[in-house]
């Protein structure tokens, strides 16, 4: 893997080797999906779902936070609109991730890009973005990590349905921290590859303010939008003759 500078654009591809590499490097994330899948399976059993219903939900929806939120507030009176709103609220960050990933995945064509997008979860996205900034444009990384997490999530759901009471607390082994660790490693890696730090600083401020004032799923969305607008507003077309405008060129 070559060291990519701020303007380097790795070539988009989708390979089996990348897929397997994505699975390999996301093993801790897979373990966390398995354990949270077990917790979801237990919750589903307690809520009165059949194992088929629980496994179908995990297979199709593949969104831990949304599934747990819906089942925790489960009553038959819960309207479909309320359920759709819950899922939308906890997943709206994927809209931003999908928009940001367009310049990378578009060359693969709509079908392959869509298939890769359907497997997106936070951990696989963090991992794929990290690899992309290292110069590896293989969307197989994204899919491999996503599919491993998906299989672990489904397997965990089924296992938890039958044996949920026996699992150790995921917090005692730090499994709740996996997603933070993946994101932290991506951020530490990306610091060398961004030209303009201001959008990231703005995003950090927005995240902290939201967490203090109104904790919940909007913080990440607001941070993403604030960074996008800051980045777009601060963009200066390269002007080799005029060094006083825009950022210093590295």
């Amino acid at each position: 893997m070559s060291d990519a500078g701020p303007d380097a654009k790795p070539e988009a591809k989708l390979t089996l080797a990348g897929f397997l590499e994505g699975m390999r490097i996301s093993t801790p994330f897979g373990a966390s999906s398995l354990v949270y899948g077990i917790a979801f399976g237990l919750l589903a059993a307690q809520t009165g779902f059949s194992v088929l219903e629980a496994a179908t939900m995990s297979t199709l929806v593949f969104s831990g936070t949304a599934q747990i939120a819906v089942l925790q507030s489960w009553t038959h009176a819960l309207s479909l609109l309320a359920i759709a709103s819950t899922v939308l609220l906890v997943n709206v960050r994927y809209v931003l991730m999908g928009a940001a990933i367009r310049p990378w995945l578009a060359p693969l064509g709509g079908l392959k890009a869509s298939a890769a997008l359907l497997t997106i979860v936070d951990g696989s996205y963090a991992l794929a973005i990290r690899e992309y900034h290292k110069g590896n444009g293989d969307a197989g990384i994204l899919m491999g990590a996503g599919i491993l997490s998906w299989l672990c999530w489904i397997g965990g759901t089924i296992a938890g349905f039958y044996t949920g009471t026996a699992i150790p607390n995921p917090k005692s082994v730090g499994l709740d921290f996996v997603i933070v660790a993946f994101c932290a490693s991506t951020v530490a890696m990306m610091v060398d590859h961004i030209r303009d730090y201001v959008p990231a600083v703005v995003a950090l401020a927005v995240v902290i303010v939201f967490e203090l004032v109104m904790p919940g799923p909007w913080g990440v969305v607001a941070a993403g939008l604030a960074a996008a607008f800051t980045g777009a507003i601060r963009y200066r077309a390269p002007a080799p003759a005029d060094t006083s405008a825009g950022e210093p060129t590295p």
Partner: protein
Amino acid sequence: MTMDTHILAVIAVMTATAYACRLSGFWFMRLIPITPRVEAGLKAIPIAVMLGIMIPPVMRGGIPETVGMLATMAVVRLGANDLVAVIVGMGSVAGLRALL
């Protein structure tokens, strides 16, 4: 084994919403010409999303989460394997939680 029709409807609605979230950003951007300025905006999103995901759990946590985050980043900066960095982060969180 049968499936309850209400649960089936719930699964269908959740699936449609989750898929729409995963696909809509990518397809919406098809309508917007990717000028260098738009691309600069898009480029700023990933790190912001990463911060948005990782900072709240650290703020809600305490010393173990803060140390774990910094340890993970330090290991990456030292040039070690990313998987090692993640495992060091998890390990320091688990260890500190057991001690504190």
